[in-house]
């Protein structure tokens, strides 16, 4: 039996745990505001909020309900547009009407949900962060201008009133951003027991953000196990000189980890380029690793951190260096009954440099044409440690061993960089596909290796420029 609160109603259901949350909401519950736009997490028309108790409050995340098994809704508060609507328009709804943020209306509920999620999670308004919150929502009509105006306008109501409210939630209720019933949700959620996790079946689902894209019709009729709620697989911790990330840690948790943000200055920005917030809220690092996509972004970063994969089979544990984990296209050094318990890497030394580059047709919410990460340590002006990864240029997420070997002991200068980039070309075998021609991917990797050094050592690198004559 799966129990959760859908808007203000307690739901108890015995549908198959693999049932797609979107289908349950629309077909079983006849709540049709949440739309199916693509069933691959790329449009956001199906966005709902998933609220989870932490302490005495509920933290809300936006997710794509088309990729979420209902099992993971257990003990959660699921919010659709029907659940935020009052007898009057919420300030967000009103702003969307006034500013022309809605035209055909099909994507609109998803936007309203994402925007509501932003205000639930932030007590201080920042337009860039607010815009990021709708990064997973596609609108084909408005050009987003009216939607951005609506965000600003909703904030006028939010920031202008209710400063005397005791809590952030009370302020939102006072300003009618959410209905009164939100107040009792923490209490109500606490009464719902968790479902114990187990791993017995052949198919194990963590975030499901790729499996549900590939074969949802199969999954909804399969027996699978769910591990995303397994606390043992969560967490990002520092032990001695290593950092360990649980296999079911979500990408958003990794992105927002204050531990990692303190170490890597631009950590947050790198992960902005990974999917969208609703995807990152569900996708896990373990999933990203086993999915074995040659352009997996998190894997790309972890390769440059020389990470180790911790595998578990019942009580047996095993470790494999990530760079040795991939044996061929979508083939892994992993037995069917092993799961990824964690991934770990060394805490960087004091003199380290790190950079991540990703190029895709669309900068955000897109899959890389080519991505690359670099980790580098300098000792007395020479490169002492270096790891570079490259995605989208081989059947597997690639570790550029030869290029790294060349760079070791070299000093950072233009010539070194040009040579390293040309050595990288001998390690890759890109193919032409929807993400670009082989020729383009080759050129891209060269440029990204340049970009690493231009970004990290702007004073030391002078790239040749085609022709600097000024044109009239």
């Amino acid at each position, binding site marked *: 039996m799966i129990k959760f609160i859908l808007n203000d109603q307690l739901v108890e259901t015995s549908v198959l745990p693999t049932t797609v949350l979107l289908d349950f909401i629309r077909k079983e519950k006849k709540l*049709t*505001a*949440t*739309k*199916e736009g693509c069933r*691959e997490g*790329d449009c956001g028309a199906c966005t709902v909020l998933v609220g989870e108790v932490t302490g005495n409050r509920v933290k809300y995340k936006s997710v794509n309900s088309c990729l979420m098994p209902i099992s993971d809704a257990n003990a959660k508060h699921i919010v659709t*547009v*029907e659940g935020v*609507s009052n007898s009057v*328009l919420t300030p*967000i*709804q009103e702003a*969307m*009407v006034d500013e*022309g943020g*809605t*035209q*055909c*209306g*099909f*994507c*609109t*509920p998803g936007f*309203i949900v994402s925007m509501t999620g932003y205000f639930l999670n932030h007590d201080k308004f920042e337009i860039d962060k607010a*815009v990021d919150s709708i*990064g997973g*929502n596609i*609108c*084909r*009509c*408005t*050009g*987003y*201008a*009216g*939607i951005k105006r609506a965000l600003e306008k909703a904030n006028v109501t939010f920031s202008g009133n209710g400063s005397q409210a005791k809590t952030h939630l009370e302020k939102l209720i006072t300003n009618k951003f959410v209905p009164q019933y939100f107040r009792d949700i923490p209490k109500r959620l606490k009464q719902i027991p968790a479902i114990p996790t187990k791993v017995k079946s052949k198919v194990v689902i963590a975030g499901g953000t790729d499996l549900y*894209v590939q074969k949802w*019709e199969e999954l909804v*009729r399969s027996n699978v196990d769910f591990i995303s709620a397994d606390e043992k697989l969560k967490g990002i911790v520092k032990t001695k000189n290593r950092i360990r990330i649980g296999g079911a840690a979500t990408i958003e948790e990794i992105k927002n980890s204050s531990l990692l943000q303190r170490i890597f200055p631009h950590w947050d920005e790198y992960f902005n380029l990974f999917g969208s917030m609703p995807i990152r809220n569900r996708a896990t690092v373990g999933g990203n690793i086993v999915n074995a996509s040659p352009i997996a972004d998190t894997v790309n970063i972890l390769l440059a951190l020389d990470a180790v994969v911790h595998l578990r089979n019942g009580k047996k544990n095993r470790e494999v260096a990530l760079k040795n984990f991939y044996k061929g296209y979508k083939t892994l050094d992993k037995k069917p009954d092993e799961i990824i318990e964690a991934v770990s890497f060394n805490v960087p030394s004091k003199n380290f440099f790190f950079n991540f580059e990703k*190029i895709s*047709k*669309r*900068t*955000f919410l897109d899959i890389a044409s080519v991505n690359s990460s670099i980790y580098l340590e300098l000792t007395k002006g020479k490169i002492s440690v270096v790891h570079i990864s490259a995605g989208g240029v081989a059947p597997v997420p690639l570790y550029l061993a030869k290029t790294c070997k060349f760079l070791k002991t070299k000093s950072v200068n233009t010539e070194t960089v040009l040579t390293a980039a040309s050595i990288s070309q001998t390690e890759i075998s890109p193919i032409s*596909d*929807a*993400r670009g*021609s082989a*020729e*383009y991917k080759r*050129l891209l990797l060269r*440029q990204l290796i340049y970009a690493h050094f231009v970004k990290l050592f702007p004073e030391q690198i002078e*790239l040749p*420029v*085609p*022709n600097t004559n*000024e*044109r*009239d």
Partner: protein
Amino acid sequence: MNYLSQIQTREIDLSNTDSIRHVRGESLFIDDVTLPEGVLYGYVYYSPIAHGKIQKLDFSSALKSEGVKGVFSAKDIPGENQIGGIVPDENLFAEDTVHFIGHPIALVVADSLIHAHDAVKKIKSEFKKLPAIFDPRQAAKKNELIVPPRTFEIGNIENAWSSCDYIVEDSIESGGQEHLYLETQGSVAIPIEGGGIKIISATQGPTAVQRTAARVLALPMHKVEVDVARLGGGFGGKEDQATPWAVMAALAAYKLNVAVKLVLPRQEDIRMTGKRHPYSSDFKIGLNKEGKILAYQATFYQNAGAAADLSPAILDRTLFHCTNSYFIPNVRATALSCRTNLPPFTAFRGFGGPQGMFVIESAIYKAAQIMGIDPSVIQKKNLLIEGDDFPYGQKVIQPHAEKCFYEIETRFNKNEIYRNVKEFNSENKLVKKGVAVMPVCFGISFTTTFLNQASALVHIYTDGSVNISTAAVEMGQGVNAKLRIIAAKSLSISEKRIKIDSTNTSRISNTSPTAASKGADLNGFAIIDACKILTERLRKVAAEELKTDSHSQIEIQDETIYKDGEKTDLTFDQLILTAYRNRISLTAQAHHSTPDIYFDTKTNKGKPFAYHVYGTAIVEVTLDCLRGTYQFDSVKVVHDFGGSIDKVVDLGQTEGGIAQGIGWMTMEELIWNGEGKLLTDALSTYKVPDVHFVPKEIKVHFLENVPNPFGPLNSKAVGEPPFMYGIGAYFALLNAMRAFKPDLEIKFSAPLTPEKVLLSLYS
């Protein structure tokens, strides 16, 4: 009298605003409609090859599959297996030959979508492959033309070349574009008594669905009712191509006598439906030293796909807009609609106009490059002025081309933008900026003259609420909002009283599709006429009630009745009740057709357009020359909306059109493999603008004091013209690339993806 006293008058707030329902998630789309008991679900089986003979088609396993109620193909059609609109060249289901990957062959109907899909996978088929053509020039060489070539001509092009100081030629490609309406194609068909069918469809052309369903089912049109509440985006993609799915559902519903729902999953939609036409074109342009364009010759090879669909009409509009906002005295433009083995390409915002404009702008760009001047110098010198001739013979009247262009210079400080860009570029090595100006002139009317008609049916009920039906389909363009305003002004009552009803073929007959940006114009005028009839009647009733001889002494204003300019105690509600009691009809119907338009397709001369819309944009971009990625900084527009009826709607149409236009020019890329299989057939591979991609700033200035006598309430149509501002993005980007690489070899080929940018920067 007894009965009447029971009718209460009350405060009415029907909350009939679409946008309010949208934000509350209360608007119902096809997939949201409550379905009749026992409804079945359809899934389409289609050709896996681009061209070939069907040698074997075996449905036996599919029929035995769980939950399956039927499989329907060409042989099950009681009427004609024909869905072609302009040219009867397209089957609902393939007969013996398949013509493109995605060509529908059969419809499987089952008790659930998953069961229907399971069964589709069990269909066994064999094909004999035939040679396939994907390139329009190759099709033209083999004379695979949909219709004979069309040529528009003015002046004497042969004589003109000799007086030109500069003559420039080139070839140019523009890619197709997936509509990516957020709501995929869909319909529900419900059998009704007497052997008829009711179809709930997401179509821009209810009558096309009705007519085609009747044709395929061998029914008279009066037995087919089509109802359209709204569309989750159309952009032209549901003008002609909503029809097959509605008709398939109708066929299965008719055969099984049970309701059938057919909503295409996203990937199936992208694979099977047509898109904006890719074009391959040649141009030759001649100018004098001053930059005056003296001669322009262009040949357009339109990739029409496997059937005519709307291609011939789209081809015409390419020719109508081949000179954009410019007067050119000598023009010869030829267009060929080329048959290939791709899904039939179809209407998409701009309807061939953007493809034509991209070519003339490229010609100007290349000429400017050779003359060593900025393209905007040539653009400005050749703008249309009063009395000029379009290549199709229509006289230019009340043009605002210069006004818009000049306002870009003054209001948005064009020269300062150019200076800043130059300064930025001299200070930055690996990041460059580019700027370009894009004027637009777009003709308003269906160029197929007979389509320029519409009708409205206005009911006033005894409680004073008003219900209006027209031929217009709401798809996000805000036509309902505009029609409500027009009706409220025409009846001089509060908008709150008015509801715009669904578009229904039983209420409104013989509808023209909601297209060509003409929805609000045609249907708005029809509403004005119907409301005039009602107002006349009501004034007569009021005159009688207020005991005056002539109704000319009566005025109805803001729901108040005036006699000889004096306010009376008679309320609007009382007036309505009185009219009813006096047995006066509170229903009016009116038909409108655009006056004074005509076009002779033999001479290709006439006055096809009621009027033109003008505007100019200035587009600024920043290019990362290390990575080949770019961000549009701003698009600033001066646009001629006439007297805007609804500024929120008009602004939204402009901003949305710009984003879509920039998408077409830059990022949206259809890639087919050598077998004619679309590789970018999902949202993960076909990328449309997201919130981060769109220009950081879009500023739209509404050109002032430009009432349009040819539009309802002096307004102008708005749907399509702003799309073409996106073309400016291409040239801004090209300028940024040239700032990095002055000897850049310019190859006009849209979309200008990050891939093309990077490859040309480092080739």
